[in-house]
């Protein structure tokens, strides 16, 4: 079923790509999809007919034999499964109605709309009726066609915000032209039908598998119950039988095989459509722009992924967000960093991996990017070179900040939007402060209880000072015993239990010490766009000294002086004045949120 045997050489790949660029016409494709959809029902009917034929055959045998009755009952069970799952059940909505992202009105963003309309004209197709910005580094088109795709419908264009932020203008043109090329070739007409086919198939195979699994679980439970009853009655355990599989299991095999066939056929067509759309984009926006965009988008996707995970969601445990409009927009700051930009350029320009040929799957809707670029580079040079200076695509937008803020409102959940907004520069420190404050909560509570119960007067300026005073009074284990315990600690006794309490106390004390270091300005946690997201500025050898001081503080007997000295600056003025510049340490210690 594989469309091409992939030759090793790049040029040969380009040739194959050029050959397979022929896309079957719309009627042919419609017929294929429709045929596959009908085939699904025909398959179900065929099964029923086959069962009926079997019954008739059995009935025409000599009278009512036991075999015949067994056959009838079996065929009835299978037929019931087919009717119940395949024909009667409905998919859980087709999901095409939900519209992700933020809609852009022509009045709000006239430049972008003008650009899209111009490109549509040059491609030679009707422009989309709606443009929506979505998160991510993806672009796609959709069309609400009617009558099984024979009548064109409303066209919608979805643009990933990372593309707007990260692509130069000419490459965005190429991407837009590629997507419009899909319209021009009527690739989107069959979208609805294809969607119906895929969701129908997936739903059926999924339901059958679920039923089979449920049946098996029920049978196991029955067997277990029976064994328990026999045990209770004092009989030997029942004999284990091989689990029998119901008709659902075998039906699931049949329909999964059919689903695989459908996917192979339809996705093979989709892959050809991508090559054709690439050609259109090369014609309209220039060969080099299109191939540059194809190279850049994977890098952009990776950057966006990294940005969201490490920067935008940095404060997720503490319930903090970057400033308004910066949740997606902060990607521009990451891309503006010279170090990151150099990394991305290096990624973009690196030779394309050969391994892609082996990994390409017959179920992919897109051909390997390397093949697409090879096909583009095999085209004759159109003489259009990239223009300098390259303007970012964001320049096409009016009031980009308002757009980004609107996108956040459309995409983020209500709960997330209620998180506190913090300026970028303060985000790492605030995140740490919030989570450490939360983690030291039980310790402070235990401390207050112990101080109250023992009537020990403590006059320290900070929580840490008061806690260290209590330790000096010999109350370490009184406090530690009130901290929440893990399961393992709960099961231990004697000295082991005391060691567990010491461990829990030590880690809570570490958080409190770090919180104190943060509050007093001894250590700083700064945002860094070029390397690991958070850079720690601490006095020289602070991490080692802290570990050592904590060990002393929870030792038996405890010594709190080193920790006090360390956190009060200990004669070493941490910052400012004539103090030496702070060293940048690879930090934070394990176990603290990054």
């Amino acid at each position: 079923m594989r469309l091409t045997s992939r030759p090793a050489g790049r040029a040969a790949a380009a040739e194959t790509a050029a050959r397979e660029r022929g896309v079957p016409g719309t009627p042919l494709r419609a017929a294929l999809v429709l045929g596959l959809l009908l085939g699904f029902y025909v398959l179900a009917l065929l099964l029923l007919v086959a069962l009926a034929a079997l019954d008739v055959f059995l009935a025409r045998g000599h009278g009512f034999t036991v075999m015949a009755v067994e056959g009838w009952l079996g065929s009835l069970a299978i037929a019931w499964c087919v009717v119940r799952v395949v024909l009667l059940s409905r998919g859980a909505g087709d999901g095409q109605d939900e519209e992700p992202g933020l809609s852009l009105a022509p009045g709000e963003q006239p430049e972008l709309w003008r650009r899209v309309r111009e490109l549509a004209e040059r491609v030679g197709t009707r422009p989309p009726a709606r443009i929506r910005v979505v998160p991510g580094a993806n672009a796609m088109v959709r069309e609400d066609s009617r009558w099984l795709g024979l009548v064109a419908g409303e066209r919608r264009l979805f643009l990933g915000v990372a593309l707007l932020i990260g692509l130069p203008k000419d490459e965005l043109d190429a991407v837009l032209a590629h997507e419009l090329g899909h319209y021009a070739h009527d690739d989107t007409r069959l979208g609805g039908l294809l969607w119906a086919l895929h969701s129908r198939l997936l739903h059926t195979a999924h339901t059958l598998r679920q039923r089979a699994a449920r049946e098996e679980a029920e049978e196991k439970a029955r067997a277990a119950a029976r064994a328990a009853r026999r045990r209770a009655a004092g009989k030997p355990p029942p004999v284990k039988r091989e689990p029998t599989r119901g008709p659902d299991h075998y039906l699931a095999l049949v329909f999964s095989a059919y689903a695989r066939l459908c996917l192979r056929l339809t996705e093979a067509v989709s892959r050809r459509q991508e090559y054709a759309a690439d050609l259109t984009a090369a014609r309209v926006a220039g060969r080099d722009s299109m191939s540059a965009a194809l190279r850049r988008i994977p890098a952009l996707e990776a950057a966006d992924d990294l940005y969201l995970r490490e920067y935008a969601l940095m404060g997720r445990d503490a319930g903090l967000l970057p400033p308004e409009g910066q949740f997606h927009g902060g990607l521009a700051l990451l891309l503006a960093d010279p170090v990151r930009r150099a990394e991305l350029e290096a990624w973009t320009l690196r030779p394309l991996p050969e391994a892609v040929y082996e990994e390409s799957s017959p179920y992919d809707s897109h051909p390997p990017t390397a093949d697409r670029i090879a096909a583009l580079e095999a085209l004759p040079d159109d003489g259009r070179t990239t223009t300098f200076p390259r303007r970012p695509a964001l320049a096409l937008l009016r009031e980009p900040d308002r757009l980004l803020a609107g996108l956040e409102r459309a995409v983020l959940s209500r709960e997330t939007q209620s998180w506190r907004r913090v300026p970028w520069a303060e985000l790492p420190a605030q995140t740490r402060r919030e989570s450490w404050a939360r983690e030291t909560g039980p310790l402070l509570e235990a401390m207050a209880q112990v101080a109250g119960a023992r009537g020990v007067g403590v006059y320290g300026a900070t929580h840490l000072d008061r806690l260290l005073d209590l330790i000096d009074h010999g109350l370490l284990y009184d406090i530690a015993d009130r901290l929440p315990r893990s399961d393992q600690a709960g099961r231990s006794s004697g000295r082991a239990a005391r060691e567990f309490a010491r461990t829990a106390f030590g880690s809570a004390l570490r958080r409190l010490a770090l919180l104190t270091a943060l509050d007093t300005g001894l250590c700083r946690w700064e945002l860094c766009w070029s390397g690991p997201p958070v850079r720690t500025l601490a006095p020289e050898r602070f991490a080692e000294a802290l570990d050592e001081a904590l060990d002393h503080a929870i030792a038996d007997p405890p010594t709190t002086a080193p920790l006090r000295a360390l956190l009060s600056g200990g004669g070493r003025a941490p910052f400012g004045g004539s103090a030496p510049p702070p060293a940048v340490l690879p930090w934070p210690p394990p176990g603290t949120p990054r």
Partner: protein
Amino acid sequence: MNILIDIAGAGILLYAVVTLPRNIRKGRALRAEAKAKAPVNIDPAKYGLVPAAQLDKRFAGPDPEADAVAAAALAGDWRQAAAYLAGAGRDWDLRWYRLGILTHAAVEDDAWLKAWRTEYPGDPSAVLVHADALVSLAGKVRGAKLAKHTTAEQFEGFHRLLAEALPACQEAAWMAPEDPCPWIAQISIAVGLGWSHDDFRALWAEITARDPHHFGAHMSALQYWCAKWRGSHELMYAFADQAAAAAPQGSLLPVLRLDALMEHAFREPKAPVYNQPFVQSAVDATLDAVDRAPAGHHRLPAVRHLLADALFQTKRYAEAVEQFRAIGGYVGSTPWTYSANPVKAFVFARTNTFVAWEKAGRPAPPPRGHSLGY
């Protein structure tokens, strides 16, 4: 419609009748199969054995003196404990064994140990008990599960205690230069912290320089050389073979090879561990060593547990019966303690041994070709 129901009902009845003999046959076969698989039970009293419910899970064998010392120590009398340890004299393995008894008590509660150390800060024995107790406590905090089932909290306490234990061991070694025990205690630290082979061999040299055939040290070092810690099956067997071959007459070290076999079988339950060519000779050598050992030797119970298991695994039931009888009512030893339910594992091996022995007509153990030289 009625006729259809009648036909169906008649069909079902007919089917039941026709298939009745077949189902009876099937059921009989299945019941027979189940019976073959079902656990066998014997009456322990008939063979003079201790019933499963009365087996002692804590110890490998009886030692009333040790029990009394531990109880006294936990009650605060450290002087008896100190005298007990001193009583071992220069029998370093006996000292190590008695140290284990005191360590066990000190891990439960160290008030008596603190009193001892306060009164005699310079007593090397007190420092030794303290150091070894830290090592044991570290193991207790960590738990005996695999690393992936051990939490970060458990590891943190484990590493902190081992970090405290190492200097304590070194101090004890410095205070008693001739005593191998402070060095042997470090074997567990080496296992826990994953010392390199070179570092471990340096430690081993310190131990063998003080006592070349120390039983406890060899059992502990075998752990380091097993595949589950820092070694492999090959390294483990090489260590056990070398130690067993070099052991002097009267030493119980030949059991080391059975211990290695047990470790191998435990790690690879499907492997034909007990079919290896050297197994029979290793079992014979251990039987000889047990025969030669004086009655009441402090290591004899632990050796008998391993020996009984090896005899059971190699189907030498008549000899296994002897060992199970000698073991009596204790299961607190390897290999049973490796199982989630040591009593069940022990009773399984014991019951099957006696059943097989009964089936064979209660044969007497075969005579072995050696003279019992005392």
